[in-house]
């Protein structure tokens, strides 16, 4: 590989650990953005390497190291981690705060996203999935991203935050700019816009609290009986807005893209619509194979990790999709086995910052797929429709995915 030292190579990084790797760059013709990671995994680059791209950062490739990156917050902090670096950056609550302080907001959010809490949302989630699918099922085609995978989690956000349905368009626009815009001015303005919406939302819920998550956050009291700092409340709202949208959208995009091209897998799920254990096991396998997030950490102090010298403020990427195919952990890791019995995937991370919304996210996928298959049992990709406009980065995915089926 060619070496391009845009910033000079930091002197603590030995030359044999340098690899030229840009995780935003998907080579033309590559249809699956995760392949850039799997190419790395299959190559003989060091399992811990440094790339000078995007401000310079480390990449971990072994399951054990990635898991340690999540668990060891003494070395790997979630505070101010963007790659390439942006400073200052909103300190998202509780995601951007290290233990034990992250517990303040973690404990506040956790009860609203436990498996028990999520079971109470199922009926609403089913109703929403049915309504969306019903809107296009008779047409025999849709753009899966625009018509379903982007709308569904955004609608769920409105429901959880106690917001009226007619704000869907506004929130889709905000999310669209946040996740897809590459224009720095538009991006900066977008963050200001999102915070303005959150500001008025929380003020409104403070005056008229309802039975929703925004109200719970704004009316919560700390150990001394005071409201949490206003900025933290906004930052928590910001986290919930950005964390549960694009990740779910693109996980679904990957799964539907696979099902559209794999009749046996569609049949597998269809035959198990009334067998929740087997259905969930198959979903769990697709979660393993389609891990869209690449998480960031920042090194807290100069130290040595697995014999590699790390320096304070070095950035690290933990690619979940790579961990999930580590042959020392998963039998036949590249094989999709919808009946896989042992599956310790890290799609939602592990350790103290494990995705607090994971049970909701998983439920959104399960409900959507079940409702979809009941209404649209068979479907395929629209040939030559350019489903391949793929993007890399911290969340990988597709800009559009055109599907068709017989009506």
């Amino acid at each position, binding site marked *: 590989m060619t070496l391009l030292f845009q910033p000079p190579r930091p002197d603590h990084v030995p030359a044999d650990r340098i690899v030229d790797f840009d995780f935003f760059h998907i080579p033309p013709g590559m249809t699956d953005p995760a392949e850039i990671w799997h190419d790395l995994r299959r190559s003989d680059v060091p399992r811990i390497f440094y790339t000078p791209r995007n401000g310079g950062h480390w990449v971990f490739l072994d399951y054990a190291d990635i898991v340690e990156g999540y668990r060891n917050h003494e070395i790997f902090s979630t505070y101010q981690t963007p790659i390439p670096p942006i400073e200052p950056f909103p300190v998202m609550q509780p995601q951007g705060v290290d233990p034990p302080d992250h517990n303040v907001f973690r404990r506040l959010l*956790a*009860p609203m996203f*436990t*498996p*028990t809490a999520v079971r109470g949302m199922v009926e609403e989630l089913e109703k929403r999935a049915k309504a969306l699918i019903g809107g296009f099922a008779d047409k025999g085609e849709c753009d899966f991203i625009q018509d379903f995978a982007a709308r569904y989690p955004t609608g769920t956000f409105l429901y959880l935050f106690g917001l009226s349905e007619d704000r869907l368009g506004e929130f889709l626009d905000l999310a669209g700019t946040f996740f897809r815009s590459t224009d720095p001015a538009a991006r900066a303005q977008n963050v200001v816009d999102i915070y303005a919406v959150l500001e008025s939302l929380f003020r409104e819920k403070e005056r008229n609290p309802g039975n929703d998550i925004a109200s719970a956050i704004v009316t919560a009291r700390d150990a001394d009986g005071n409201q949490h700092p206003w900025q933290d409340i906004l930052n928590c709202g910001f986290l919930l807005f950005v964390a549960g949208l694009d990740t779910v959208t693109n996980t679904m995009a990957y799964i539907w893209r696979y099902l559209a091209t794999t009749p046996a897998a569609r049949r597998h799920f269809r035959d198990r619509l009334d067998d929740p254990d087997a259905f969930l096991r198959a979903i769990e396998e697709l979660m393993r194979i389609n891990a869209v997030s690449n998480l960031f950490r920042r090194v807290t102090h100069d130290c040595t990790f697995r014999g590699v010298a790390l320096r304070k403020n070095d950035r690290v990427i933990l690619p979940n999709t790579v961990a999930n195919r580590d042959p020392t952990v998963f039998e036949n890791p590249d094989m999709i086995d919808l009946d896989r019995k*042992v599956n310790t995937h890290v799609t939602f991370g592990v*350790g*103290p910052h*494990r995705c607090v919304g994971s049970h909701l996210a998983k439920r959104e996928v399960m409900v959507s797929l079940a409702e979809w298959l009941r209404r649209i049992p068979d479907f395929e990709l629209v040939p030559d429709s350019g489903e391949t406009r793929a993007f890399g980065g911290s969340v990988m995915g597709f800009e559009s995915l055109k599907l068709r089926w017989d009506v």
Partner: protein
Amino acid sequence: MKVHVNLSLCQGHARCEEICPEVFATDTVEGKCLILKDIVPDDLLEKARLVVRNCPEGALRLSRDKGAAAEGETA
């Protein structure tokens, strides 16, 4: 066999409850593991072993235990 959970490792993935709800549940505060039957009945042993292998945090453990000695303990 007796099942143990290390709650300082458990992060609430709920794989235990999903795979073997006869033995495991999750709490409503943090979503962490609750053991419903700490002595695993023989017919659920295979499932419980599978659960231990599926916990992403390695928070669960099975140990041989004389039923009588553990009678007094509850989860």
